């Protein structure tokens, strides 16, 4: 979706410190040139295919369909990307752009760690230095991802300021970029931030929806009736929805993190129920969870990747225009949906993606068997093993951890207890 000079209705734009003006312009220009350069697109498609395994399948779920007795349920399998999430689509694109711009280093923020891992992977492959900012709370929740980022050669910096989650990581990444713009690219992981990032990330992610169009025609000779995607920053939703914006009859449903409850700080519901308010922060205008003085607020989700205070200006605009329907799923609904997919289809979904599942499962039974829904399974759930084990109250997991620790070298445990990486 093309922006109007960086704007989507009243949202988007570029509200950044003056120090970043030149870098922002440079990214804008490089992206404008690259998107129109057949050689760049060819290289992009080649990397998507050879490195990430695209196209990802569109998987029909016969058991789930029978279980709900309504619409035919399909999953777009972004979990089968290299790195296990749709994040790879974007980092491959921006990674190639970094090489094109001749920069040597990438900076990224990450919530769940999926974008951090994807960035570290691509940085290793392209020979780029890599620094990842991650909220200290997210480091604690998703330590295995931190471990892999570091093994890949990335520097992971836990952000201990503010709410210690994605939004603080984003602030720190912007601060790094303010001092390092000459040789560094800020590789934003979602369709937020200053122009051209929302448009660029959506451009790279739109491969999801384009493939769904082709696969739908090939597999059932029609377009889907309804699409579901979880919405944190909004990149997997933009990727699935945008190629269908000309088809109003294809209903698009965005699913936010309902968390533990409706009180401020317990959820990350920005658009459904008008819990968020218009604001301008972190480089762009959108809807943010904030108080009456304009201070951004803390958020919660069982899924670190959805725990974001703002939302893509593209999603905010489309929701405002009624071109998307926004809903949400609670932490408990999400765990239930995750479990159901495991049992019925033998697929382990990320907790982020399980939000889309939860909303789709709520509605599938109300649709007719002639209708088809596509749920974006944006990531796989291996990374969530600790959180899911706790959520389903697995009795043997603590025993496993204890015996694991018993066999772990004592000297490293002491170092850990002294304050380094006490995450798991």
């Amino acid at each position, binding site marked *: 979706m093309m922006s109007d000079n960086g704007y989507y209705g009243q949202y988007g734009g570029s509200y950044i*410190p*003056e120090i970043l003006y030149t870098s922002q*312009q440079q990214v804008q220009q490089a992206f404008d040139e690259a998107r129109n350069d057949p050689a760049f697109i060819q290289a992009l498609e080649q990397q998507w295919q050879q490195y990430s395994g695209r196209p990802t399948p569109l998987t029909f779920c016969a058991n789930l369909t029978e279980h709900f007795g309504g619409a035919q349920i399909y999953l777009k399998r972004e979990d089968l990307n290299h790195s296990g999430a749709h994040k790879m689509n974007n980092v491959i694109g921006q990674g190639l752009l970094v090489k094109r711009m001749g920069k040597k280093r990438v900076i990224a923020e990450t919530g769940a760690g999926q974008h951090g891992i994807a960035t570290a992977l691509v940085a290793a492959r392209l020979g780029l230095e890599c620094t990842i900012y991650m909220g200290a709370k997210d480091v604690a929740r998703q330590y295995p991802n931190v471990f892999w980022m570091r093994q890949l050669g990335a520097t992971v910096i836990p952000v201990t300021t*503010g709410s210690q989650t994605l939004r603080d990581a984003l602030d720190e990444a912007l*601060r790094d970029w303010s001092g390092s713009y000459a040789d560094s690219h800020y590789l934003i992981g979602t369709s937020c931030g200053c122009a051209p990032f929302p448009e660029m990330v959506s451009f790279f992610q739109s491969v999801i929806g384009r493939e769904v169009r082709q696969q739908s025609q090939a597999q059932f000779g029609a377009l889907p009736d309804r699409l579901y995607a979880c919405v944190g920053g909004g990149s997997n939703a933009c990727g699935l929805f945008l190629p269908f914006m000309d088809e109003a009859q294809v209903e698009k449903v965005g699913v936010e993190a309902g968390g533990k409850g409706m009180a401020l700080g317990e959820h990350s519901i920005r658009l459904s129920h008008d819990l968020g308010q218009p604001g*301008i922060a972190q480089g762009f205008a959108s809807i943010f969870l904030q108080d009456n003085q*304009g201070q951004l607020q803390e958020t919660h989700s069982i899924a670190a990747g959805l725990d974001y205070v703002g939302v893509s200006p593209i999603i905010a605009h489309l929701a405002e225009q009624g071109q998307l329907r926004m809903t949400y799923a609670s932490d408990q609904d999400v765990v239930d949906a995750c479990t159901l997919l495991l049992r019925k289809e033998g697929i382990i979904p990320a907790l982020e993606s399980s939000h889309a599942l939860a909303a789709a499962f709520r509605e599938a039974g109300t649709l007719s068997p002639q209708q088809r829904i596509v749920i974006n399974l944006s990531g796989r759930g291996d990374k969530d093993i600790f959180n899911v084990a706790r959520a389903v109250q697995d009795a043997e997991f603590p025993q496993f951890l204890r015996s694991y620790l018993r066999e772990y070298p004592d000297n490293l445990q002491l170092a850990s207890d002294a304050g380094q990486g006490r995450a798991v």
Partner: protein
Amino acid sequence: MPTLSEFIRARSQALQTSERLPLLAMTHVIYGYPTVEASLAWMRRLLEQGIELLEVQFPFSDPVADGPTIVAACHRAVENQPQMQLCLQQLGQLQRDFPQSRILLMGYLNPFYRYGLTRLVQDAAAQGIAGLIIPDLPMERAGQFRRDCTDHGVEPIWLVTPATPAERLASIARQATGMLYCVSRSGVTGQKDGAQQALADYLSTIRQHTDAPLAVGFGIRRRVQVEALVGQADIAIVGSALLEAYNAGGQEAGLALLASLGII
């Protein structure tokens, strides 16, 4: 009442014959840090010491252009739930109590946006606040804000940086009125001082495009840096270093720093 630039020129003139370095001091204080009362007391103390320009930052949860010291203080200040309307009233009282100084309000866009930018300009003007500094509001998005500022007699203060392209720097400098905020080196606030040579070229380039007073900030923490500005700029901005001194030893340490810099 003289305009901001007239005020700055008159005070600069007076300083030529004083024992102080001939630069105006612009000191930075975060409203609400560590408490609203303590921040107001610190502002009052600075004004009593004859600080010409007081830059008051209204805290924001996500201050992306600030370094770690100011970020930490902003987060602390936000916990005290600062209220914009009360802040403006209290700054107005300070301005009335210290008519020999000028108060500038600095802040990130979102709290101002929530308050209403037009309302902010009106209320700031009514309280006698001389200027507004909004680091994440680019000039090209500020049409209505600039009209409001002109209508109400508040100066919008723009920033330029060493990374600002020549053409853009010229354009911003030409449109500067009350003062131009010249970031002295790349990066966020509060980092250690870099090379001084480039600074002279940078300031002389800016000077070619504007007669507005030049304020230099980001990274001033030693007297030699202030001395290097004499003759090239009009105002030395002391932000992070002042906060660090305040954190270490309260108001007295802050004043001692300013004295060591030669600007009080």
